[in-house]
């Protein structure tokens, strides 16, 4: 028999919320997370209307920074972010001058997220739209279940990236890990370096003019200078779209 301990029941609020001021029309707001809480930051972001810019200092790897943004704001995080930074972004720009933890920009709908360092696993997971740029490397499952988001990674990506990727584009300027694009649907993957292995139903496809053009636009949007003709394209063989006796080993 296991004896359980009473759970913590804490809705975090800081002692002092005076360090956060709702953004006015064009003002710049600074939130120091040494003194303000993540709750204060997010509530102020949710309450903000109109264009505003925010600077978040001393993020300290805290989770859920700048999540659920619906307004056209510019957020700069000066340091490292924990899990789910810029999660479910719907508008505006979030820049992280540091590294990002698990689930960066998960389920992003629109807007731009830019990480100047590395990102952990499940970056841009299930993203429906918008652009996620990672200057460094991304961990495993980058772009898992992506549903329309565009992702540009300057370095390498880990294993099982673009798993069950449904729509959108994943651009990798470095190398890709094992099982790239396993069970992929209609997303397109561009890789400049090597691919350790392809996942089930993912195949290399020819680079046609429209793909070079599309890739060029994505690289430009991410502020990168790589040559699109150095990349290879990968996508779905569409063999697993229907249950079929010949595919039984893939189930």
């Amino acid at each position, binding site marked *: *028999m*296991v*004896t*359980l*301990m*009473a*759970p*913590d*029941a804490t*809705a975090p609020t800081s002692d002092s919320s005076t360090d956060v001021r709702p953004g006015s029309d064009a003002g710049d707001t600074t939130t120091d997370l040494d003194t303000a809480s*993540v*709750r204060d930051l*997010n*509530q102020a972001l*949710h309450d903000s209307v109109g264009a505003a810019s925010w600077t978040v200092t001393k993020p300290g790897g805290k*989770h*859920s920074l700048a*999540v*659920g943004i*619906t307004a056209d704001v510019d957020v700069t995080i000066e340091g490292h972010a*924990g*899990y*789910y930074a810029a*999660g*479910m972004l*719907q508008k505006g720009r979030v820049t992280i001058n540091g590294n990002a933890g*698990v*689930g960066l920009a*998960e*389920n992003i*709908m629109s807007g731009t997220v830019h990480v100047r360092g590395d990102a952990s696993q*499940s970056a841009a*997971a*299930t993203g*429906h739209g918008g652009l996620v740029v990672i200057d460094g490397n991304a961990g495993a*499952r980058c772009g*898992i*279940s992506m*549903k*329309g988001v565009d992702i540009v990674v300057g370095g390498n990506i880990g294993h099982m990236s673009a*798993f*069950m990727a*449904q*729509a959108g584009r994943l651009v990798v300027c470095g190398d890709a890990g094992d099982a790239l694009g396993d069970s992929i*649907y*209609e997303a397109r993957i561009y890789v400049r370096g090597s691919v350790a292995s392809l996942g089930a139903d993912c195949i290399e496809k020819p680079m046609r003019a429209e793909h070079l053009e599309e890739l060029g636009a994505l690289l430009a949007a991410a502020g990168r200078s790589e040559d699109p003709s150095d990349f290879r394209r990968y996508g779905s063989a569409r063999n697993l*779209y*229907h*249950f*079929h*006796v010949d595919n*039984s080993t893939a189930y």
Partner: protein
Amino acid sequence: MTLTSLPQDDSVQVPAPDIAALGLRESATFDRATIADIQRAAATGVYDIRGWGAKRRVPHFDDLLFLGASMSRYPLEGYREKCDTDVVLGDRHASKPLHLQIPVTIAGMSFGALSANAKEALGRGASEVGTSTTTGDGGMTPEERGQSRHLVYQYLPSRYGMNPDDLRKADAIEIVLGQGAKPGGGGMLLGQKITERVAGMRTLPVGIDQRSASRHPDWTGPDDLEIKIGELREITDWKTPIYVKIGASRPYYDTALAVKAGADVVVVDGMQGGTAATQQVFIENVGIPTLAAIPQAVQALQELGVHRKVQLIVSGCIRTGADVAKAMALGADAVAIGTAALIALGDNDPRYAAEYAALGSAPGFYDDFQDGRDPAGITTQDPELASRLDPIAGGRRLANYLRVLTMEAQTIARACGKSHLHNLEPEDLVALTIEASAMARVPLAGTSWIPGAGQGTL
């Protein structure tokens, strides 16, 4: 016809043999359904996929009885003395908890698995009696939000149609780890039901056989879940209750971990709980019965000191007011119904007997929800079939059924002397079988014996 069902041969019509007159002996091991399964597997080479829940007999609420009031306890007067039924869900951390008039909610079923009319009927029926409905794997439709006064938004591994605007429109969020029909399995929706609208909501090509992920894409394990719940709370500004739904397999540990991760409500779905499409081998062989799951979940809540503070919703084969009362006596705060709600809408109605026969089935047996050819117009995306279900009439039938469930539960509660359904307790119950006694942890009728009691029942 899907590749997973056996093609029918209409060329030979032989009258059914008189088995008794011929003195034929059916094998208990290789019964006719088992033989048909083997024949189907040999013919198709793909496992059987079907809807509904486990069909095998397992210890269930039928194996429990209530002890009515007697010398030592007063009963309440039926109709005259109050027996309340309302329930508050999610007041642990959320600033806007749900307050439902009856403790019977509608379980998660997707638009896609069900027709738009069926979803609307569920919303109408539930709203009429003051309870909640739940979305499913495929997002929230405007019709559903419009017709449901209390709508629970499921947050699933696939994240099909997951939209932060819908998340904020929801009255509660249910993070789904699993369901009773298939703990450890992902969703399925076969191509017949992936119409343009369904495909658009899920960002999938039209007509493919969709197999959803079984694990969440951006968190793994209870420590991550705590962070994920934190993110959802931040996005909804700590207003919206957050449920965690688990398929019953290790409910003691899963409930404890869900509480520690910060859930407001834990939903435990037993193995008899239904599905729209899952491998038969999964439905029948994975998970534990609802009856066995409840005491384990309640024990975890009690040991953590949060029973009644973190609410417990139980689902998996709730059919009658007696089932509602028994689940609540064992410690549930509310129950959820799925299969029974579809039957109330008109599923398996004998008036479609000829059409069920044409599909190789019969009223009372139809479970090919994956095929999308439901004669009752419920588990289909075919416009002609779907139009057979009038959402207003269907909603009225569901409201009637929900009222009956509630009145039946009240009847039993009053007989046990309880002024609120929540006052029912395990001491009101006895078991008819040793198995049910051991699982439900109530004594075998006529004895004080609970098998396993005091020996560590986990």
